[in-house]
């Protein structure tokens, strides 16, 4: 893992969480949001958002609809579905458990 790469498998968690916080977003907005929220630490290979989004679409965790951006461009907007919300909760609790455990191990005694 190069510095500032995101841990494998967590990209979908980041996307789901971002969508749950902001509602509807298109791909570029999701990328920007992740980048800014992490204080420019998490460097996503931006294009890899798209295969990840397709995976979420297949699972039915997000839905997509074409809309228009502020700059009057056509863009595909993604939003969380009910199943996506449930999945996010599961993944979050899983993440917190693991993260908590790792933190506990790393804590100086």
């Amino acid at each position, binding site marked *: 893992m190069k510095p500032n790469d995101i841990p494998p498998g967590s990209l979908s968690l980041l996307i789901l969480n971002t969508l749950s916080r902001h509602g509807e977003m*298109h*791909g*570029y907005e999701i*990328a920007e949001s992740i980048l800014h929220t992490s204080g420019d630490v998490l460097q996503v*290979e*931006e*294009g*890899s958002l*798209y*295969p990840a*989004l*397709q*995976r979420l*679409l*297949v*699972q*039915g965790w997000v839905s997509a609809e*074409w809309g228009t*951006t502020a700059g009057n*461009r*056509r*863009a*595909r907007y993604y939003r969380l579905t009910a199943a996506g919300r449930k999945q996010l909760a599961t993944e979050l609790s899983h993440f917190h458990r693991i993260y908590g455990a790792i933190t506990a191990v790393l804590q100086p005694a």
Partner: protein
Amino acid sequence: MRQLLRRLGMLFHRSRFNADLEEEMRLHLELREQQQVAAGLSPEQAHREARRRFGNGTALRERSVAAWGWSWLESFAQDTLYGLRSMLRSPGLTLVALLSLALGIGANTAIFSFLDALMLRPLPVKAPSQLVILGDGDEGGNTDRYGSTTLYSYPFFSQLRSRNIVFSEVATVFSDNEKTHGIIDSRNQMDFLAPDLVSGTFFSTLGVEPALGRLFTVADDTTEGAHPVTVISYAFWQTAFAGTPDVLSHTVKFADTTFTIIGVAPPGFFGITVGHAPDLWIPMAMMKSLPAHHNGYKDNFSQSNLIIGRLKPGVTHALAETEINVLYQQIIRGFPDAKLNDYNLSHLQRAHVTLTPIATGISWLRHEFSDPLKLLMGVTALVLLIACANIANLLLARSTARAREFAVRQALGAQRLRLIRQLLTESLILALAGGSLGIAFAVVADRMLLRMISGGPDADLIPIDVSLNLPLLGFSLVVTIGTAVIFGIVPALRASHVEVTGALKDGRSSANAATRNVLGKVLIVAQVSISFVLAVASVLFLRSLVNLTHVETGFPRNGVMLVDMDSSVLGLKGDDPRMLAMFSQIEDRVAAIPGVHGAGFASFTFHQGSWNTAINIPGTAYNDAINIKHNVVSNGYFNTMQIPLLAGRSFGPQDTATSHKVIILSESMVRDLFPADANPIGRHIYIGKDPNPKNDVEVVGVVKDVKFDNLQEHRQYIDYVPDAQRGWGYGTLAVRYTGDFNIVSKDVQNAIHSIDRNVPISRVTTLDRVIERSITNQALVAQLSTFFALLAVFLSAIGIYGLMSYLVSRRTNEIGIRMALGAARSSVGWMIMREIVLLVVSGIALGGALTLATNQLVQSLLYGLKPTEPLSLLLAIVALLAIALPAAWLPARRASRVSPMEALRYE
């Protein structure tokens, strides 16, 4: 489920999907670019930076598509399309491959469908594997011999049924069921029907349920003559009664007895004999009421029934056999009328009843056709192998030509496995297309084969089901995929194994072409050797058939008409004076028809079965191992058949029921069985063992030997007795005639009906046809093996031609140089030919060795020649060379005509 719908939706809107993805990615790049410009980068730098941060667009698009999980289908579709395109690019090759596959797979499927129907398919009854038959089930007729272990009397069956503890149920089937004429309802014509006599337990033993009404019970078969009932077959219900639901109120009348239909057997049920489909079943207790008036229901030693049993669960075969053999001795010795003299006892002691499993039923067809069918199955499998070798060779040649394409693709990052998969997909497409064609071909071939096996265009079709069914389609599918793998895998492995740099650098003339061709050459040698084996076999079978058709029968086989009539419907016994009078009137009247040179009856004409016993010739030792065939004939028979009288006299009006009993013997009987140099005429002999006056006959004549049952048989001992002294309800009239068959046949039938209009005539044929039909299986083997051998040789020739053309094209360059350096055309041609001649000769040598090693397999199917006979080998060699060498010569000649300039310029 929803997910599947979403994924399917994506599959069907592929172009929309791609466009959407494209647009959204473009938007992303543009927005990032704008943002970078806003951050102060130059437009060019911004463009580069946006792309750098985005990543590899093509790969990302591929991954996005892959997320939907259709990539396997995608690459399969690609391979398929690509395969179809490359097949269409070389239509000639594709056509040859398809045709040879279709013929190969079709022939295998067709032959297998017969093997399946005759030998492999279980009876359509409950748990057929529990069923056994007493003895081997291979006899039919009636015997009073002690120690009979296949044919049993009805009283024996009754006792066995009540006394055994190993069978859950036992049934018996009359072994000598004959077609006879009966009347359906009160229709005003007679129909030729096939009734089977069975015990009341028949259906319950087999465990079948009626389609309609009820089946027999024990009560239907307890009192002789009491229950005129019948169960009809499903097919008979459909054809004779048009499937009417009120069929249970209908009747079938035989002789004087009207049988009420009480039920319909389930569809497809035919009993236990494969290839015999009775129209209806009648309880044993009614046997006397059928036209043949069988009189064995209460006779302890009228042994004419087969007995089948269903083993109780848990009873082993060995245990059952032991128990049945104990019972067998007890029951037969316990019959009050058993003649337990030393002779009979010794036969009884030697008798051992084997129990034969009949899960696949019994069938006389098996004896005749199982060997030929197995042989043909082997032959067709070999033909298919040749076809595979051919296609492998063609694909190999093509894959070598495509080596560059594959090298390029591998250089561009295609995985090896992916390339193999693509080539195998192509093979599979070819095989599946060939397989479907093959199945269509098999359907047609099955019908032709059934015709051939049944004995020709004028014979009744044997009722076996050879239509396409699930196991059969499974078989074809396995064969198809098997062939695809066989002919596809080698080229695929080879093609994917190219050395990338080498192949890219190489031009048309590859330096290592020689090593690549080794496999192709091995395939050619294999093809030639298999073709040779098949060619030898077909020559053997053809010559064997020719030998058979030239066998001396003892009578001129042309110009004899055989008229089958059913005199049993008259309800008279064979020795009834009215019956005798009728036959002699028919004989006289038919003989007087213009164009008819003689007419005569016989109990057995050629290939009609036999009645045989031992005879007792005073002055010689009695030998019961020598069976004499007896034929009851009318006065005009010898004259009609033109069987020459060698000594004494023929039968005439002086031989009557009251005159002294006379007999005419065949010449070898006199030569082998009578004391040497004794004049047989006037001697007295006994038919059977006992020298009692009832059996005493006087020899009045000697006639020439004739073939009796088949052409292959060795010399038969035959004697003839006159009808007047031993009445026989004849079935066949022989008529020697000249002129038009149809006209004479009509006149003969009219003459018969003018004597008695109630005698149905079931068939008119010729002796010639009967003889031909008796060698149906030899003809079948000869014709089909010749067809397949020709096909094999032809396919090999295509293979040789293909390989040669390929070799020539690979060596055009070399040939050009040689010729530029002064080589003669002929020597160039020979250089090419030499190679192929070597291959063909080694193929023939290998084939010769194979032939010698396997000749025992065909020995039993040959007549009058040995499998190792040199003439057949020679003929096969000539035939093979005559086809293979021209196939090689054409490309060689093309090579020798290459213009050196052109060849060199090409590079």
